[in-house]
């Protein structure tokens, strides 16, 4: 792949030491092109989430290098990595991880607040709010702006988390089992939303253990025994999985 958006080379990661050491990733190599929807599949405990965390600079590999637009990520300093997490990557977690004290709108605005200084925020607050409201309207949550996460359904929480991941317009969206905690209908809504985003040009790497969900991606890789392998005919399987995707209704 020429000039991939993201390139992981020889990623190793293990937990524990000595006899208790578990080698989760054993030289993972992965590339994702801009605009691609890539699914990483594999059984539970195979290291999918670990790989996604490393791709999002939430964790560091023991060995190997991650590059984003040709820039090293894993070996960069922590300030650069923080900036990478803030601006280049958006993260969607299986358990949403919304801040419980904040409203939906405030949760979505948090990455933008991280971006701005106090005075920068004072200058741009109105514009940021408008963008967040538009994003939440796009997620079908315009009636939930002032609600707290505990007042939302699982699907609404996940859509809020997606809006939060997108507020800084990242190049890459990383989704860790985004439907893993949702029922089939709600999960379908979230998947539909991811599909829409991808069609609008958003690069997505999604981790899932569900082959049907993974089939929605352009490309699938399977993680097994610590390494990834390309899998199947993505286009044909994707068409077969279309019914899983539900359009978002406001």
């Amino acid at each position, binding site marked *: 792949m020429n000039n991939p958006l993201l390139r992981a080379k020889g990623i190793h990661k293990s937990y524990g030491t000595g006899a208790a050491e578990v080698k989760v990733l054993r030289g993972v190599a992965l590339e994702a092109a801009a605009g691609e929807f890539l699914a990483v599949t594999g059984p539970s405990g195979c290291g999918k989430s670990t790989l996604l*965390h490393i791709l*999002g600079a*939430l*964790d560091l590999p023991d060995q190997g290098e991650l590059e984003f637009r040709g820039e090293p990520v894993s070996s960069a300093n*922590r*300030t650069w990595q*923080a*900036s*990478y*997490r*803030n*601006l280049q990557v958006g*993260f969607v*977690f299986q358990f949403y*991880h*919304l*801040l419980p*004290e*904040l409203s939906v709108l*405030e949760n979505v605005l*948090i*990455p933008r*607040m*991280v*971006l*701005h*200084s*106090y005075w*920068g*925020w004072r200058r741009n607050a109105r514009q940021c709010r408008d963008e967040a409201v538009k994003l939440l309207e796009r997620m079908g949550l315009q009636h939930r702006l002032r609600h707290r996460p505990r007042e939302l359904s699982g699907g609404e929480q996940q859509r809020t988390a997606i809006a*939060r991941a997108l507020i*800084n317009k990242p190049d890459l969206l990383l989704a860790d089992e985004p439907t893993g905690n949702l029922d089939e209908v709600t999960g379908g809504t979230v998947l539909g939303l991811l599909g829409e985003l991808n069609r609008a040009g958003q690069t997505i790497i999604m981790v899932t253990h569900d082959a049907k969900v993974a089939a929605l991606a352009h490309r699938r890789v399977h993680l097994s025994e610590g390494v990834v392998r390309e899998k199947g005919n993505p286009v044909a399987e994707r068409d077969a999985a279309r019914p899983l995707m539900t359009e978002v209704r406001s």
Partner: protein
Amino acid sequence: MYKWFLVSKYLRTKLVALFGIAAVTLCVAMVLVVTSVMGGFLDTIRSRSRGLHSELVLESGSMQGFPYYDEFAKKLKQALPDVVRVTSPAIHTAGIFRVPALQYTKLAKVLGIRIDEYVQFNDFKKGLHYEHYYPGTTTLAQQEMLVAGLDNKGNLQLPREWADANAKWRASETDKKTIADFDAHPPDGAPYPDIRPFRRTESVFAFDPDGPFEAGPKRFGAIVGTDLLFDRDQDGKFDRYIARGASVALSLLPLSASGNPLGEPPVLLPLRYVDDSHSGIYEIDSMSVYVDVDMLQHHLAMDPQELEDGSMSKPRVSQLLIALQPGVNLDDAKKRVQSAWIDFCADMADQVTENDAKNMHRAEVATWEDMQRGLINAVEKEKYLMLIILAIVCLVAIVLLGLIFYMIVEKKTRDIGVLKAVGARSRGIASMFIGYAAAVGFVGSILGNTIGAIFVRHINEFQDFLARLNPQLRVWSPDVYSFDRIPDVVKTNDIAWITTVAILASIAGSLIPALVAGRVWPVRALRYE
């Protein structure tokens, strides 16, 4: 921006933060109360001590006093005109104070003063009760008892001298409520003699319906320490149960120049109670009786006495009070006056008797601070001791805050992971918790200072309230703490330093948990259960 935003959110929504604020509030309130009361205690001792003494005193080291005080005073004014403004002799001795009509007897510290000069040295005049409402009427000279009466319409009529003085006070008093309070109570018609007086809120007169007139015989006046004669009522006001001008008496023991009792029966000195003095220092107000120095000198046989060789002894006093020129350094003036006294004694060495020489050499110059050194030092040490104890309490509060913030960080670990996942830096997370602690300290300080200040301002009312419920609950005893009222002034600079220390202590308490929060790796925080 997220730091400010989340700090304000957490402050409003986290119950555990309220515990931190409560801890800071209680500590700040406690420190402010103790600092204000102890600091006020010390300040009051200093200011009232200053207000009761002259700047310098040439103090006899013995009860028989020292001679040649007039000569030395003249020499001082000539030799040190840039240092000494005015001098006045004084005598202090022990006596037995008595109110004959009540058969009330108490040990007293008798001070002989020239009142017109004495009021130039200090704030003595401010503490005189009748002098306040009837300015110019308090005198220690011989006088009769002034008796109020009724006019043809049955209205109270004061003796002319009092009526004029009271009119002068009314003209100068700006607070109309004070005048209204003064006039509030009508005459109760209690008849003469002096122990059953006519009473107004603030004044007690001898009363006879046929008055006003002056009732003899003439006697020297005595100003009595308020607590020596009167008790406070439940509202904290003195219950003046004897009339102005009532008969009182002092029993005195005259001493020779060598300090021996003169062998005669003690002197019984009938006087008139003309006013009472309230300095606010219980030790002084419960002991002191002020009389005319020349009269006292005569009755103590300290005036010129015929000696065995037919010559006359020199008059003696216990103190020479010395007021300084404005702006003169106290310690420097003390050294110069002491030096002048030593030179004076040397010059007089061949003219004085052996007893006089001993009495002169014993006399020393002291500042007003030296005169109260024991009390001031004791209170200063007590204040420092309290501050040490409070410092330990504050350390406990810091540890408590540390634990509270450790709990907060533990509870917010996943939120920290989320914040890091969206780009927050370690330093930002740490500074957010430090800012959180500073906010807890700030809010706690405001609440603590407010509660502490309100408590201090109303501490006397609070004590009076408790005492009304149960007299055993009166915690401030004037005979133990010197003052009749608990100091109730809060200083702005005390609030400023307490607030600063509280915020810094809160930050110190949160420092370790904040650093731990900042260092946590995002993925570990997100997986935290």
